[in-house]
């Protein structure tokens, strides 16, 4: 963007102003993108959940009810903004802002398409985690500032859940860091080129005859030789197709559900227990702000999951189009953006699907699930990821001579790594699931048996 502006305006403006304008434009685009998706998501959620419950959902406002979110927004705008008399006015006012701002900040680092990256931050993954942790403060402020016991209870639950599930989420993302060898989000889609399971490890045997539609030239692939190589690339080398990535994805997605307060982890706003949780005392635009924050958080978490495990914008045809050069690069970028959007929406559909299928967890079940199941799985997965990286990339010197894999081709090493990690992950998953299983006969039931 900056470059385009520079070429347009040239030297008419000082450089810092051009940079500032460029950032403003990019920010506006990203915000509109997110808000547009938010509007569609609200509509889609209501329609899809309705179909799952054998209903039709909102279908009166506009074609197929598409204008329903607009009508809702108009309602929200015109509602009275009520602040309880005993509430802490400023904290009450700031809470929705504090919970929305970090969520919006998360959008900045996600690569929305090939070459469509708002910011290149080399600690992007950590940044996303840190920023999403901040929204907990907003929830606390809302709960405390409302001076309402339901709000406070909801805030306590929300923050406890947020803090607990951040640990499996971060640990699952750590697998990505290990696999990628860095915390930048921009590289992740590039690293997930290739074909399923094998990744970008199948090299071109004949450097001349390889079709540019199927083969891409990759440079500086972590661990791979630094000279450019031509690899078989269908844009499907997503990490979710490897055992490590699959486990990491499952753990991260479940934790993301909990962070986004989606059913079955929606106990902070369990309306049957604590009215609306921390949002109890909010109305009008403040409530709408919370609502937007929640959906955009879900949107960006889905985008993050897609980028980290499902290849981000990577997909069949993107690399081939980009290889053709010229204006086709822009087509490739558009196609890649579409791929990412499609992945986000599929993940969002799964979120709705889970909401339609499962009841809400109890608080102790929620905590048990995070600490006894997800966290051990994520820890095992880090070990697997380290093994995978070391098997595929380490030289025998790095292994201190213990293992010598130098003689194998990269696809053979990949295959070995996949088999080893698959064995580790499957056995660990089975073991952790089995030790978590409820004992067949509970002690209490034995004690309680009354003789006939």
């Amino acid at each position, binding site marked *: 963007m900056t470059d385009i502006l520079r070429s347009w305006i040239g030297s008419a403006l000082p450089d810092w102003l051009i940079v500032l304008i460029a950032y403003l434009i990019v920010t506006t685009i990203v915000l509109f993108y997110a808000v547009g998706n938010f509007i569609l998501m609200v509509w889609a959620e209501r329609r899809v959940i309705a179909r*799952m419950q054998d209903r039709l959902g909102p279908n009166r406002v506009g074609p197929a009810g598409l204008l329903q979110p607009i009508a809702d927004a108009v309602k929200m705008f015109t509602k009275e903004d009520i602040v309880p008399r005993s509430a802490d006015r400023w904290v009450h006012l700031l809470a929705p802002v504090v919970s929305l701002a970090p969520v919006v900040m998360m959008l900045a680092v996600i690569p929305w398409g090939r070459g469509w990256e708002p910011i290149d931050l080399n600690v992007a993954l950590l940044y996303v985690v840190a920023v999403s942790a901040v929204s907990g403060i907003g929830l606390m402020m809302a709960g405390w500032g409302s001076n309402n016991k339901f709000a406070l209870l909801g805030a306590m639950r929300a923050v406890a859940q947020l803090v607990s599930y951040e640990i499996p989420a971060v640990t699952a993302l750590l697998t990505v860091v290990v696999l990628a060898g860095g915390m930048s989000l921009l590289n992740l889609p590039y690293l997930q080129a290739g074909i399923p399971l094998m990744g970008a490890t199948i090299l071109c045997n004949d450097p001349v005859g390889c079709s540019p539609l199927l083969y891409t030239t990759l440079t500086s692939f972590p661990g791979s030789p630094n000279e450019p190589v031509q690899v078989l690339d269908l844009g499907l080398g997503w990490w979710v197709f490897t055992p490590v990535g699959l486990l990491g994805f499952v753990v991260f997605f479940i934790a993301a559900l909990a962070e986004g307060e989606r059913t079955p982890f929606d106990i902070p706003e369990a309306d049957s227990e604590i009215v609306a949780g921390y949002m109890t005392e909010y109305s009008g635009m403040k409530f709408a702000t919370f609502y937007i924050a929640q959906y955009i958080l879900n949107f960006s978490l889905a985008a993050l999951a897609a980028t980290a495990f499902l290849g981000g914008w990577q997909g069949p045809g993107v690399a081939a189009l980009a290889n053709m050069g010229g204006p086709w690069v822009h087509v490739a970028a558009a196609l890649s953006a579409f791929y990412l959007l499609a992945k986000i929406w599929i993940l969002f559909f799964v979120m709705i*699907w889970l909401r*339609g*299928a499962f009841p809400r967890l109890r608080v102790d079940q929620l905590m048990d699930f995070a600490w006894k199941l997800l966290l051990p799985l994520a820890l095992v997965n880090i070990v697997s990821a380290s093994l995978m990286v070391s098997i595929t990339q380490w030289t025998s010197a790095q292994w201190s001579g213990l293992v010598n894999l130098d003689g194998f081709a990269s696809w053979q090493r990949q295959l070995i790594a996949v088999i080893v990690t698959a064995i580790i992950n499957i056995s660990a998953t089975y073991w952790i699931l089995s030790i978590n*299983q409820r004992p067949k006969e509970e002690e209490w039931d034995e004690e309680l048996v009354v003789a006939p």
Partner: protein
Amino acid sequence: MTTETETETTETQTTRGKVYVIDRGRPKLRAGQGLLTGLDVVFRHFRDALMRKLEKPSQQTGVFTVQYPEERLKLPEAFRNFPILLYDDETGHELCTSCFQCQRICPPQVIHMTQARDPATGKAVPAVAEFLIEYDACMSCGLCAEVCPFDAIKMDHEFELSTDVHGGLTINKVGLNRPISYYEKIAPTFWAEVKDGAMKKLQGNIKRRPDLIGVAPQMIDTIKAKRAEAATAQEPAPTARDSVPTDKADRLAAIRAKAAAKDAEAQPAPSDDSAPTDKAARLAAIRAANAARKAAAEGAPAPASDAPATHAAPAPDAPPAARSMPDDKAARLAAIRAANAARKAAAEGAPAPASDVPTAHAAPASDAPPAASSMPDDKAARLAAIRAANAAKKAAAQKQDGNDDK
């Protein structure tokens, strides 16, 4: 369209209705299987809801939403909302005999009625003069319909009654009246069960009711028009039989009757809101006419006797403005006087066909002051009754003359 869900469902007919047994598959086996089964079930619902509607109860999936204003469920026959009154399609006679059973049994006491009286004798007749039901307080229990011995009150299926008019849910007889064919349409089997008894009782009642008492108010004009047409059709028969002057008079009466019938058709329907007082004037006119006709009916040919009634009909249309109770009394008084006079005239001897003509003249008099305010209306009604009485007297005198001639 036949999915596995339908084959899993078995349907058995028992004495108490259909029993659907749904096979829900194998029980849960191991950890996680329950979760996956749940997802599967939900997805199947999602997929089927996109493709089809839920039509049969044996179907487990599909959209069951009925988009109400456009689509409507077929209401069961036994559905009951608020009570209505039935009248016969042909004759317009109401089935109600004002036995007060429904008024007594009504738990929220929202049914009110007054019994009709014979204008000639002043005695109560088995017909209802006015019938009011406060729909806004009605609890739709259906006890009135169950208790009614004449099957005159039934429960309606119409439920879209919301209104913004205060008092708009207090319905009078005009609003309550429905033809039998309407009820037969909404509840055919129920009507078939009671039809014979109800119609038999109705025929019995019609005999006991003086003419046009107990006819559905909105049907009166139609019925009269019908009768007038019948009168025109049958006109030649009396013409041949009677003497020239009477024939002339008869023809005049018939022409006037036609004109009045046309007039009546052109008139707007009686407005509902002034019903109780409006009723008084109408009643007076009807009674006056009836009394005159009764007098005539004892000897005069039938077709001519209908004419005054036809003329009298437009009278109630004239005073739409509400009036106080004394008007009612005055009108009734006038009617009674008219009746008495007519009876006296009749008592004096054989009927004279010409006797109807002055009555026919008298009745339209009440048409005259339609624009006038409440007081003149009252006067006019009284005037009409007096004139009717005079005419009857005159007729009696003429008849005496006729007798003398013979």
